[in-house]
């Protein structure tokens, strides 16, 4: 294994990836999510959002109150699509 600091294990996003995203000019978690893919895997950000938010605050000089979370989308955990199959149509 080559040495890497993994900030988002689901999508293999490293500390360097987040630094690169910030250098490229992204400073908002929603943008950084789309650029690096963090928070889009099976955990949906449960294990990485805080760490990456803290890194973004450090890298961009933003205060905590300026940093907003990305939109949380269902489902929160890996869920078989069969559970939705019986829901009523609108």
């Amino acid at each position, binding site marked *: 294994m080559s040495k890497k600091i993994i900030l988002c294990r689901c*999508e293999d996003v490293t500390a360097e990836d987040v630094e690169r995203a910030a250098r490229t000019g992204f400073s908002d978690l929603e943008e950084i999510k789309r650029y690096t893919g963090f928070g889009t895997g099976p955990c949906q950000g449960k294990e990485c959002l805080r760490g990456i938010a803290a890194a973004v605050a450090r890298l961009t000089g933003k205060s905590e109150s300026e940093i907003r979370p990305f939109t949380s989308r269902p489902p929160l955990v890996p869920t078989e699509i069969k559970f939705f199959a019986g829901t009523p149509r609108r």
Partner: protein
Amino acid sequence: MRNLPAALERGRPVTIDFEGQSIATFEGEPVAVALFATGTRVLGRSPKYHRPRGLFCLDGHCGSCLLRVDGRPNVRSCMVPAREGLRCERQNAFPDAELDLLQAADWLFPKGMDHHRLMTGSRLGNELFVKLVRQMGGSGTLPDRPPSETPVVRNESVDVCVVGAGPAGLAAATAVAEARPGMRVVLIDEQDHTGGSLLAEPGGVELASARAAAAVRAGVRLWSCATAIAFYPEDGQDSVVADGPPGLLAVVTAQGLVRLAARRFLYATGSYDQNLPFPDNDRPGIISARACGRLVFRWGIRPAPRVIVVGDGTADTAFLARLYAGLDERGIAVQTVTLDQAQSGVGARGAVIAVATRPAPASELLRQHGAELRLDVAKGGFAPPVGPTFESTVAGVFAVGDVTGFRGTEIAYSDGRLAGVALAATL
């Protein structure tokens, strides 16, 4: 490794099939625990660099323990109780997860793979590269066969829905039911045993059982193995709830999907274990401090003769004191390492490393309700501001315990009672 007493009597001995190999375990023990206890650390490979991965949180949250179980891909193996004949396999590896040749990707890109800039010089090169990456990436392959039946979907309306049966949720649900006898109060929890973070502490299972019994005596309906997967604020105009927040909570249970409407929602969803940034912090054998507690105290597994704890000084000191005392009592040595020291590498082959840092509020459902969240890294992450009544910025939606910023099991319990009383006063 299973030479410690488990918190509950172990189930009957069963055998599960792991890639053709028979693994002896006990009915009800999670598959991830059974594999760990019999020496399997690598549960799969990561999606991009094919780095080996193993369990981390042992609480259903980190997504690091996915296996193919009985022909279904991407199942969290820490949430699957073992039963006779269960089949499981690792994913995303060639020829197998121990010796994955695709891990070449990790060596080829020591500085990481920037897919925005890689092979963008030529159109053809880029197309080929994208194809290759798509082939190599992703997680799992399609199920062996479609599900034999479609799960039932039903609607249910209650007065109060409490999500999370940890110390805060147990106390809050009990307090509501005591203050408003006859009202329909449900307490839902994803795990097969109530207790939440208590399950990571010595004696936590017993304490949780006693508190759950008190909740049921007070009239609370307890749904275990029930996962709140989403809140849909735009749904459920058809449901009949007098003065509740608009929308439906989707809850997955063994029987099917429940579309739950409630007059009040109280989120006691607790907090998620977090990792710390140090080189190769994702190696198998690096687990959260609470996962270490769950292994030892709940499941009776001795993870290693010695546990190395990497901490950044923000973990709950009361929890760590109980963890260390419990480990010491069971003859497991503890060595502590600071995050700075961990930068130059930590641990040896086979060692278990427990990461101790402040967990992060499990606040997504509040986000989905539209409640305001604020980042406070010292409190663990994004938490809803709540006043003395524990109500969030959305009327009828309450939050208590670690989800409001880390509190620890004792304050979560006492706050849970206060929140239950405050919520009941609005009914």
